[in-house]
């Protein structure tokens, strides 16, 4: 039986690491804090989950607007991508009946800012999970 070479062992370990990295990144995007949870940073995961989801929920309560992918302006399309960075929360809110906000509601502008900011914070969270998975951060 042929022995595995050192190069094969390194390649297999590299494949496993890439697989783990992809799982962590996708999980971190889909649910805020889940990437940190998979990397066994449970305290940080809980804080990030509560903070980012609280921001999203507050945005919904303030009747923030859900942007659409195909919008008349580039800024609104960017806003869509910003809101999608929060993961499954936006589709879940639509599924449970949130119609995308009322732009004429008195706090709608603040709500929209909260929704986009929640997505941006989750983007930072994904990048942090990436750094932790690569061993760059504790």
């Amino acid at each position, binding site marked *: 039986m042929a022995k595995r070479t050192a190069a094969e062992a390194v390649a297999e370990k590299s494949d496993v690491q890439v697989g783990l990295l992809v799982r962590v990144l996708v999980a971190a995007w889909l649910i805020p804090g889940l990437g940190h949870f998979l990397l066994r940073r449970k305290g940080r995961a809980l804080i990030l989950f509560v903070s980012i989801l609280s921001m999203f929920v507050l945005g919904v309560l*303030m009747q923030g607007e859900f942007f659409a992918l195909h919008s008349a302006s580039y800024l609104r399309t960017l806003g869509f991508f910003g809101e999608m960075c929060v993961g499954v929360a936006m589709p879940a809110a639509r599924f449970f009946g949130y119609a995308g906000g009322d732009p004429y509601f*008195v*706090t709608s502008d*603040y709500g929209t800012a909260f929704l986009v900011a929640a997505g941006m*914070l989750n983007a930072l969270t994904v990048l942090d999970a990436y750094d932790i998975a690569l061993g760059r951060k504790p």
Partner: protein
Amino acid sequence: MVISHFTALLLFALLVSVVFGVLSKDTPRDRAIYGAKVFGAFVGVALLLGWIMYPVPW
């Protein structure tokens, strides 16, 4: 949910500060101190800008 401008500012600053603190520092103490500094900076700068804009007529 109808809240005042200042309440919205405080909530936003609080949640962003918590996340920034958790992501930027490595120890719980450092995270808390940095998060408090970021929160103070958010609120302080907002109040400062508000007063700077106060004399502006439009």
